[in-house]
């Protein structure tokens, strides 16, 4: 995974991560520094939110909240993780909260089997119309098929798949975000992949 490019990289500090320079510039109160941080991370944050929520407006709201939260709290950011990890952690938490609120508002109980329940994959079986071969055949682009399939995965598995296999975060980074052991990340991720593979089986 490559860090997003930032501004302010000079020859002397070539080895420093560009995000660190942006952060430094922001803390020094340089004008436009926060703009540069937003520009460097907005596509990634927005795409993650959009794939988590499957709703453009909600994704826009949450992405805005993520950056505003960062704006207020960057002073206390201790750089134990990279800025992108920190932002994606905020985004993941906010998306999961939004999904929970949405579910409670809809008063719909979606039951996902917990981990360790035999060999059954931990995902919601796809709705019949979503995996009908004739309908899937109509969807030309693989990306759209994937995103539809992702929307069928339970949110706790979805964000793992997005961060690991789409955004390229390491298992260790995800473990630090979720505050769970690396082994748990790996096992949950494997179940999520198998669930997605089952949804996509008619296509791939």
């Amino acid at each position, binding site marked *: 995974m490559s860090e997003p490019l930032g501004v302010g990289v000079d020859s002397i500090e070539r080895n420093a991560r560009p995000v660190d320079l942006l952060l430094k510039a922001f803390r020094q109160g340089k004008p436009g520094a926060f703009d540069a941080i937003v520009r460097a991370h907005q596509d990634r944050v927005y795409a993650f939110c959009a794939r988590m929520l499957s709703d453009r407006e909600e994704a826009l709201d949450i992405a805005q909240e993520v950056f505003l939260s960062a704006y207020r709290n960057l002073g206390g950011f201790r750089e134990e993780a990279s800025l992108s990890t920190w932002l994606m952690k905020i985004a993941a938490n906010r998306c999961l909260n939004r999904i929970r609120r949405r579910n409670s508002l809809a008063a719909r109980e979606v039951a996902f089997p917990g981990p360790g329940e035999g060999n059954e994959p931990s995902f919601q079986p796809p709705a019949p119309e979503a995996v009908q071969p004739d309908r899937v055949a109509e969807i030309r682009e693989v990306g759209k098929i994937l995103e539809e399939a992702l929307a069928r995965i339970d949110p706790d598995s979805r964000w793992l798949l997005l961060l690991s296999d789409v955004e390229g975060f390491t298992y260790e980074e995800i473990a630090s975000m979720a505050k769970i052991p690396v082994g748990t990340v790996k096992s949950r*991720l494997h179940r999520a992949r198998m669930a997605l593979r089952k949804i996509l089986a008619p296509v791939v």
Partner: protein
Amino acid sequence: MNCEQVRNLLSDLLDGSLPDAVRTGINGHLQECLSCREEREGLEETLLALRTLPPGKAPAELLERIRRETAREKARGTPLWKKLFLPAHIKIPLEAAAVVLITLLVIGSQNQELPELFSPRPAARMDAAPAANEGGSGKSAVPQRKESGGASTEMAPAPKPLASPSRSAAVGKRETPVRPLDPSPQAALPAQTSLPSVPAQRVSTAGERIEPEAPPPALALPAPLGRMVTIEVRAENRAGLEERIAAAALRLGGSAQMDDAMAGEMPEGSENGMRVRLPAASDAPFLEELSRMGTLPPERDAGGAALSAGFPPGPVAYTVRIRVR
């Protein structure tokens, strides 16, 4: 290896994180098992699809909205408390100092020796006791010392350590002649904990003994019925005496009342009695009037008694006994 074991390890196999021996075992199984091989290929294609998912593009609206909100927050300004306490290098030492201070205060408040640091030394406290009295309930003790004409106050050998509840009730009344000067409860508490139980001998530097104050004359004591006055008249002058006394009282701005209930209270030999209430200024003229009507005993000169609570300030009252010679 069976199918279940192999399928559980497919992600690790594709990550390349398995030991050689395990990987060899899985590959051997996959060569023989078509179902597991298809599973592995399907998972590989899924991962490939995920990793090649086109990157998203944030709408330009997002940056505009963030700029607008951050500008609004900047205009609002950071609250002062946040400026002071948000940076960790300020907040953490301040919080640590606060914790230490609170701990010290809690320990100090539980330690009974701590007030000793701030209170006068035991030797000085003996002389300070009257002064401590002045601040609190000792207001009544100060005038008492003045009444005693500057005489020194020698305490009883074993003074009461604390003021009794009846002491506060005595405030405002006439003081009894000799009373130990008790320190106020607030001043007595630290003394109790720090002083040895040596009886205090002297609270004044004047070096004189306190002489018991003479009891006040009976006529000076307040009485509910006022001062008792006996008028002696001859038998021939007895008729209509009550009316004449009442007329004198009315003339002097007061009032008079015959009270049959007084019959039982009257001393032996008295025929009757009446109650008279007068303005303070009419006290002496009334006694003059009485002396013209009959003979008054010599204690009349003590003056009218001040009424206790219940009457407005100023008036004096008499209970006039009529005795026939």
